[in-house]
């Protein structure tokens, strides 16, 4: 505990002058030096000064220990994804927040606060906290510097900037001599690889994360990791493994009463069945997922779009149209861009394929190019446009789109 600044804090809070506080204990210049941390005072002087301020030395030392143990607890709650329990720990930390700046845990606390805001998905608050921490980073210990960079990578994930996050994970991994750091780190990296559509890497890191979480009996993170693994097994056409993941997930989510995850699991099971060309089952799982979702949830659009696409491919145009029209109207309120644009594309395509191609060029492609994180989608649309121009004998335009595919 930094007692000098702590004494200054309580003295000013109580409206006592340096002369009044120092009287009979030490000289005023001595007190001034203690307060500014430029002189180490002995325990006895500190105790006397604190006593006059009605603050107990022992209590303060206990608080230092309390901060340390609460922060440890806080980190564990985040790692175990315990959403309700973390609030209790955070509340306890908040209660002693006024003494934390005088503690050796000051930066750790601010870093954990940043992590907490990310955990809660409060991005603008997290951004402000990141800026505060950035100004202090030269004072960080090596471990604190590591945490700051790692949390910045988590921040980038939440912002959808997966490539930038990937660079940070790569650097941290290399700096750690290619050692598997911890389950959380591996889970987040798996998440990044999956979002970048790199299923091989996602499976590689996901399996390592799963092993660690299983050893820790970290149930929620086991479910999360199984979900990302299932998605990437599906993408890699390792269907049996994917099926095992999703069946396991359905059983355990029901067991843990994890109702929030069930619609996501059903959606991904639908995604797997879709890839396996089991259209009927895919539709059944997507419908099941949709029935459990709230209409304003962003995932609702993803599932509804998947259903619309299946109907479109089954040539059941009326049902497809219903889905796309619903997305179009709902997205006006919620601002969901990608599914809204694609639904519009299909709707136009039903009326006039030529107009749809123009819409693709004018709206869809610019949106995806500006987002910079939809490389696979872009490739698909470049191909589509190129083929279309080719069919219409416009070879230069066709080649132009082909050359964009890298």
């Amino acid at each position, binding site marked *: 505990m930094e007692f000098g600044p702590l004494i200054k804090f309580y003295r000013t809070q109580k409206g006592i002058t340096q002369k009044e506080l120092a009287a009979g204990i030490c000289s005023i210049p001595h007190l001034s030096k203690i307060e500014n941390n430029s002189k180490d005072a002995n325990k006895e002087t500190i105790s006397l000064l604190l006593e006059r301020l009605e603050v107990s030395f022992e209590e303060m030392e206990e608080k230092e220990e309390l901060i340390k143990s609460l922060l440890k607890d806080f980190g564990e709650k*985040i790692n175990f*994804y315990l959403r309700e329990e973390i609030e209790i720990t955070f509340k306890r930390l908040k209660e002693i927040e006024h003494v934390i700046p005088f503690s050796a845990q000051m930066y750790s606390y601010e870093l954990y606060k940043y992590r907490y805001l*990310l*955990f809660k*998905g409060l991005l603008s608050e997290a951004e402000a906290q990141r800026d505060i921490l950035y100004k202090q980073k030269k004072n960080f210990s090596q471990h604190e510097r590591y945490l700051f960079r790692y949390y910045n990578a*988590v921040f980038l*994930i*939440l912002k959808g900037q997966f490539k930038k996050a990937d660079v940070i994970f790569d650097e941290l991994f290399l700096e750690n001599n290619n050692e598997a750091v911890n389950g959380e780190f591996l889970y*987040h990296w798996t*998440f990044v690889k*999956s*979002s970048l559509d790199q299923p091989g890497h996602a499976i590689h890191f996901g399996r390592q994360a799963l092993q660690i979480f299983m050893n820790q009996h970290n149930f929620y*993170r086991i*479910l*999360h990791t199984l*979900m*990302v693994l299932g*998605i990437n097994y*599906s993408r890699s056409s390792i269907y049996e493994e994917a099926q095992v993941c999703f069946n396991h997930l359905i059983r355990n989510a029901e067991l843990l009463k994890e109702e929030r*995850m069930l619609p*996501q699991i059903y*959606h*991904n099971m639908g*995604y797997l069945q*879709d*890839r396996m060309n089991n259209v009927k089952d895919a539709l059944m799982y997507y419908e099941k997922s949709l029935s459990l979702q709230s209409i304003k949830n962003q*995932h609702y659009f*993803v*599932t509804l*779009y*998947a259903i619309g*696409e299946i109907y*479109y*491919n089954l040539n059941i145009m009326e049902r497809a149209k219903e889905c796309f029209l619903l997305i179009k109207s709902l997205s006006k309120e919620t601002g969901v861009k990608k599914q809204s644009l*694609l639904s519009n594309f299909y709707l136009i*395509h039903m009326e006039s*394929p*030529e107009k*749809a*191609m123009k819409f693709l060029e004018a709206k869809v492609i610019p949106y995806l190019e500006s987002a910079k994180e939809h490389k696979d*989608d872009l490739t*698909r649309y470049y*191909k*589509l446009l190129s*083929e*279309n121009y*080719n*069919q*219409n*004998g416009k*070879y*230069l335009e*066709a*080649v132009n789109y*082909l*050359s964009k595919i890298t």
Partner: protein
Amino acid sequence: MKKSIILLFSLSLLILLSPATKDVSSTSSSNELAKNIYYQHADPIHPPVG
């Protein structure tokens, strides 16, 4: 220079591989085209980042 050679090569390949007769206003072929390329486009849903 290298890029223009590749472009020229791609262009000639496209012309060579294009069908001799085609119905440019064919809606059905365009539909099929869209379906083949679009199919299985729907996204999976990822778990929470936490």
